[in-house]
């Protein structure tokens, strides 16, 4: 993946607007966070291959970046994004890596379901 180029990511987000798209959205601090640090409150959530339609998608922030996707009846939101990739399959992959390079957040869009 490459460090986020906001103009390129914005252009990619625009390509997915106003049509059915599959989303992978995830945050994680890892299954071992509370094991390594007992006071740490471990949380995580992911959704994979939900089909959504958004009218406007925007990337903001000085970096790490935030993305918001405005749905007819709600929102999709992710923060802490640092890297992006446009795949051969025409998927937009966004991820946020911590200072050790570990994935902490991911937001991905695809016309076809993720395998």
């Amino acid at each position, binding site marked *: 993946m490459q460090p986020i180029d906001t103009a390129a990511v914005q252009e990619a987000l625009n390509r997915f607007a106003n049509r059915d798209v599959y989303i992978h959205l995830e945050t994680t601090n890892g299954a071992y966070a509370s094991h390594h640090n007992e006071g740490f409150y471990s949380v995580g959530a992911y959704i994979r291959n939900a089909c959504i339609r958004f009218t406007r998608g925007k990337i903001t922030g000085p970096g790490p970046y935030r993305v918001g996707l405005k749905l007819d009846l709600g929102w999709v939101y992710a923060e802490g994004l640092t890297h992006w990739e446009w795949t051969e399959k025409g998927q937009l*992959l966004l991820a946020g890596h911590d200072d050790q390079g570990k994935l902490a957040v991911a937001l991905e869009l695809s016309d076809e379901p993720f395998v």
Partner: protein
Amino acid sequence: MNERHVLVVFPHPDDEAFGVSGTIAEHAQNGTPVTYACLTLGEMGRNMGVPPFANRETLPHIRKQELEEACRILGIHDLRLLGYRDKTVEFEDEEELADRIAAIVAETNPSLVITFYPGYSVHPDHDACGAAVIRALKRWPKEERPTVHCVAFAKNCEQDLGQPDVVRDVSSVIDTKLAAIRAHRSQTEGLMQAASKRGDALAWLKTERFWTYRWDD
């Protein structure tokens, strides 16, 4: 020590690397066939390489290749990929999961099974994997069941289970073990770099510890 067949059941492609791969290498070098049933491809791992070379979508392909390479190094000729998804094992139907494992047990007829100790293995996939193995093996009469050596590393495992009753010195195969660990490059490179800076990696890796599962039925 000479087993008829060893069956290893873990949920993630690198679960065997640090705690069990020396034992596996020794069995393989003794000519004992080893079957490794791996439940997922570790699709949801956080480690993407140092610096990152994987992403969420390429990670399963990379980890599958890494696992195949680790198996080649260790002398595992029978790798079964069960096709579950990382972080979801505990939500699967427990009987169906046990069916899949019982079928492999029936086919390979192992004298030793290696898995995680249910309830003492920290990651929910580890605990669910160990529980499924125990559930599967309980379908056999107690006297016909293989020995089960469990890996455990929860903070309370020694308090509850006592000291591990199987402690193996795997120094004689340490080079093979290190190669197998390095094969899981996306997951282990950062850890090994940190351990090598601390200088304590080898002592830690030369010993493998297991708790023999105590049947409760």
